[in-house]
Every structure is written in structure tokens, then in C-alpha cells.
């Protein structure tokens, strides 16, 4: 019998290399991720997992409309921070960030009917993506006891079925 060699998952040995967003955009994404999803109730926050790095990858391979939504949104956060506080978004304090962010949040009744304003739309999408990327990160799974208990973090996967 041929032995089955046990393998290690890639996230256990390496870190995602961000390469899509500019340095300024990525710094704003990290700052935003930390504010929108800090560690809560013993669960890791967005910065405790690699949610921003993963989103840099994900948006980098996404359709151009989504890339533009993110780039414009992150640029807006930096521009507002510079205009109001003379610093990049990543450099401002929590109260200053709240001043910029609070007006951008609106209730959304149905995720297929997002806000029309592109910046509010960006915030809505990024908020959802940051939550999902954090919840589904390998480190979050490990923190939950490896049982993928929180939200949509596990299920029955269909392998490719007889591809052509």
C-alpha cells in the first residue's frame, strides 16, 4: 500500500503578500479593518487574522468594477483624513476616524440593493468582506476550536465533477 503523506496548509507556513493596492490604499484598508472588526467577545479581529492581506488578494483578482469601488473608497478615506486632520487615514485616532466613517454607514435592507452613493456602497461591501474574510480565516477557525462554528464557515463542498 502506498502511504498517504500528511501535508501542512499553506496559511500555516506563509503570509499573504499584498500587491494590488498602493501602499497608501493598503494602509487605509488595514486601519478600516481594525476599526470595523476589532477583537470581540474573545474572537479574533480583522487584524488578528490576515483579513486585509486576503482582501488585497481577492480584490486584485476581482472584476474591474469591484476593484474601482475599493480603490475609490480607500482614496476617499485618505483624502478626507488629509483634508480634516492633515494626515493619512491610517494615522488618525479613533475619534477622528469615527468622524469620517459614521456618516458613511446607512442601513441596508437587502444586500442586492446596496447604497447608490459609491463611497457608502464601498463601505457596505468592505464591511461585509472584512467580516467574512475574518470569520473564514484559518486563524479564526483555530481560535474557535477548529470546529468552524461561527457563521458560514463550513459545509459540504462539491469537488469538480468530471471536468471536460
Amino acid at each position: 500500500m502506498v502511504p498517504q503523506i500528511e501535508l501542512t496548509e499553506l496559511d500555516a507556513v506563509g503570509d499573504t503578500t499584498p500587491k494590488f493596492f498602493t501602499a497608501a490604499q493598503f494602509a487605509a484598508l488595514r486601519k478600516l479593518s481594525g476599526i470595523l472588526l476589532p477583537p470581540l467577545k474573545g474572537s479574533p479581529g480583522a487584524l488578528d487574522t490576515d483579513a486585509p492581506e486576503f482582501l488585497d488578494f481577492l480584490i486584485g483578482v476581482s472584476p474591474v468594477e469591484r476593484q474601482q469601488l475599493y480603490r475609490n473608497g480607500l482614496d476617499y478615506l485618505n483624502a478626507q483624513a488629509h483634508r480634516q486632520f492633515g494626515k493619512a487615514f491610517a494615522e488618525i485616532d479613533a475619534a477622528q476616524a469615527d468622524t469620517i466613517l459614521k456618516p458613511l454607514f446607512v442601513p441596508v435592507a437587502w444586500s442586492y440593493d446596496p447604497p447608490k452613493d459609491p463611497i457608502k456602497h464601498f463601505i457596505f461591501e468592505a464591511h461585509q468582506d472584512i467580516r467574512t474574510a475574518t470569520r473564514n480565516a484559518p486563524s479564526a477557525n483555530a481560535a474557535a476550536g477548529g470546529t468552524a462554528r461561527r457563521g458560514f464557515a463550513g459545509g459540504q463542498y462539491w469537488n469538480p465533477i468530471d471536468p471536460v
Partner: protein
Amino acid sequence: MAKKEYDVLIVGSGHSGGMAAKVLTQKGISCLMLNAGPEADYVKDRANKSAHELPYRGFNKPGRLPHVYQANEFNANQWVDEKEVPYTHDPAKPYNWVRVRLLGGRSLFWSRQSFRLSDFEFKAADIDGSGENWPISHADLAPYYSQVEGIFRVTGKKEGWPQFPDGNFIEAPDQPKSQTIQKLTDLCNQRSIGVSRMRSSQGINGLASSINLLLPDAMATGKLEIVSNAIVREITTDKTTGLANGAHFVDRHSKREMHVKARVVVVAAGTLESTRLLLNSGLANSSGVMGHYLHDQIYGVSVVASVPEARDGKASAGMMGGSVFIPRFRNLTKADKRDFIKGYCMLINSGGGANPNFFPLYGEELQKKVDSYAGSCVSGSIYGERVARFENHVRINKTVTDAWGIPVLHVDVKDSDNELKMAKDAADTMEDLFKTAGWEILSKTDRFYPPGYSIHEVGTCRMGDNPKTSVLNKWNQSHDIKNLFVVDGASFVTCGWQNPTMTIVSLSMRASEYLAEQMNQRAI
């Protein structure tokens, strides 16, 4: 060497093709079934995984399956690849065509809600003056519904309501109602809105598919052969008689072109694939109606409320939980005058939590809010009937072909005021019920998904008595070619608000019994 001629070629292996195969083979008729995709291996092809083990961490590969909102990274491989088998539409008129080509088709994955159409649908033109009546009534189909409900093991509660015909149900006793569900029921009763329960196919071990309820019986006769990965390109006809005599098909893997001979052709590839095949074959369309009257149901309208006394974990025992199903209650009487025709059903659940998107908050504030509302919510959604209209149609797009060189469909469908007004009425009605109950409205939307999303697309080869205005007769038989049958949802005249599966399978059973009788009498 020339191969044998089959009695019947069945194109497609879902609920409708499976039922045709079962009925015909059990009457001694030899059948060949061609299915466009492979057979899934339920052991080899599935595995329990965590989202973090998937390449895109559960997000699904960006840009894959843009029209399949039901797709996620776990189930992405079950759907038809939109690049392999594309279709086109005007960007301003989106259409979601959601397909499965595995053996058994979409019968592998349906939600198993099991309803009959009523004479409010079969005789809709008499009631609201729109479109045409079906050439059959509920009474014509009732004996077939009963047999199908037996095979599918449908559970439900009998109500005696004309808009919600009772059937051959496994009747489960009523569960005690939670206080929220009781309150809602009382409010509906005050408004003369009938409250019932979901009707659902139990099947066997939670699967109510062609592959476990229908095809095994057909295989047991020894009269059915099934070929997978055989993509039918064109139905062929005899030059002299004009009758169907077989089909050209393509091997999915090698693209080798093949032909098979049959005395009768039964098309059961799913509404739009069946119509695409017939249009590409240039057959059975003397009426000019083929491809027209495409319709389905509106999904997406929803209202969510929170029960204040149930917040912060304070719900007492018996306060939350349970669900109700409310079949169509609009436009049932002449006295009920609305600014729209037809109607919708409502599904209301008690006991869920709030979607974080409902709150303009983030971080710890959001978490507190979500925790506070956990388990306190009542949510309602609807399925509403779209009106079948001539202008909503599909045609062949000769400039685009699929991976096997077969011309694709162009879908041209748009909603009208009737859908918008119906959705608004539904959202307003649910909001009124929840507000009157004293609950806090957390979200309300009267927006709905694009056409096709419900995966209940029907029409495009509608049945009727008049060959000038319909493609099929009341036996699902082509008016033009008497040995050609279309037994899937393409035959529908109006879809109602109901999941169409029970009706599709019952029509296929009825058509197949008629076909077997005609073949035995040598009339076909």
C-alpha cells in the same frame, strides 16, 4: 453498423424526464435517455470542508457564475459553467439562468416545496382577463398530482381552500404555536388571510430527486438505457413524413458527433434548454409562439421585525419560534380589487436574529446591537407570480456558440408595473401585520431579484387548444409533429406563485401515459 432504433428518446434526466422514463418503461416501451452532463458520485464528489480550506476562503472565485446568486464556493461546481454554456441578454435586462447538467438535473437540489396549481391559475384568464386559460383544469391533473404526491411523500395540512388544493398528503399533527406565531395567525384571521403550513416532499433520506424516486424504477424494467455526457444538438426529422426520427448529439468530452434513431422524441431538458434545442432544430413552431411567454416568480421582497419583549435574551419559553405559510390571498374574489392582478404567498419565520446590515453601525456597537436582537426577530418573504407576456421571450443568438459549437439563447425579459405593484403590496402587508403586532420594523424592501432567479422558469412552449397560439396541445404533444413531446416546464401557460415541480412531474406523468396509449394503439 446501424444501431437499433429506440421506441422513445428522452432528452434530459431531471424530474420530467425521469417521470417519462418511469411511465413509458413500465408500460413495456424501450427508452434511451441522453443527459448532457456527468453522473455525480455522492461519495467521491463531496467532502465536508471548512471555508478556510477553500482557495477563495468561501468567497467563491471572483467573476465565476455572475448570474447564479445561489452559488457559493462550496457548491460552485454543481452549476453549469457560464463560460462553457453562455447565454446573452441586454445588460439593461438582466436574466439569471440557473442550470445543472448532472444526471438528475436540478431535481438534485430543489427546495422540495410541493404545491398544486389551482383553477385560479389553470383558468386565470376567466378570473383576471389576462393571457389564456390552460387547456386543462385542476380536475384533469388531480389524479396525477395524487400519484406524484404519493411517490414524493408530500407532507402537508389539508385546508379545503380553492386557491390551495389539498392532495394525497402525509398529514403531520399541528405543533403548538409560539406566542408570536399565534399573534400573527390571529391578525391574519382578522384580515381574512388564511394561514397554513408548508407542504414539502420528504422523498427518501431528504432527497426527492429523479435519481432516487423515478429512474431506479425505470431501470428495474430493463427497458431504459441512460447515456451521460451526451449533448443533444438537433432533433432530426424524416424528410417524407416530417416526423421526428432521432437526434444528433455530441460527446461532451471528445466532441465526437453522433446520431441516434427513435420512433418518438420526448424533450425534458428543462424549460429553456428544451426550447433552445427545438429552436436550433427549426421544428414545431408553426404558431410562432415558441420562445415566448417566458416567466417565473418574484423573490426577494422581505420585511424583518424584532419583538421588543424577546430582546436581550429575555424571550420567555414559547414566545418565539415556528413558521407559517400563507398561500395566495389576493384577488381571490371579485370584491377584492387591487391595482395588480394575480397574487403571492408569504412565508414567515419567528425566532431568527438580525442581519448586521440592518444597522448603520460597526465594531463593538454593532456587536452589541446584534447580540441584543439575537433570537428576537420575525421575518417574512414572498413568492409572487410574474405575468406571462408575449414580449418576454428567448431567441437563438447565431453569433455566439457554446463549447460544443451549439448556438446559444438570447434572453429578452423585463418586469412590468404588475410585478412592482404586487411587490409593494406584499411589503406593505407584512409591515402592517408586524407593526400591528407591536413589533419594531428592522428592514423592509419591496425590491426583488432579476427574472430567472427563482429557478422556476416556465413557458416558451406553452400548451393550448389552438395551434395558432400555442406550441403544444393539452397532452404536451407538439401541434405540428405528433411524435414530439415536451414534458418539462416549457408547457406552462401561467406559473402561479407555487413551486412548479409537482405540476411539472404530474404533467409529465399524464403526457407519458397518453403517449404510451397512443403507441400501443399504433396511433403514434
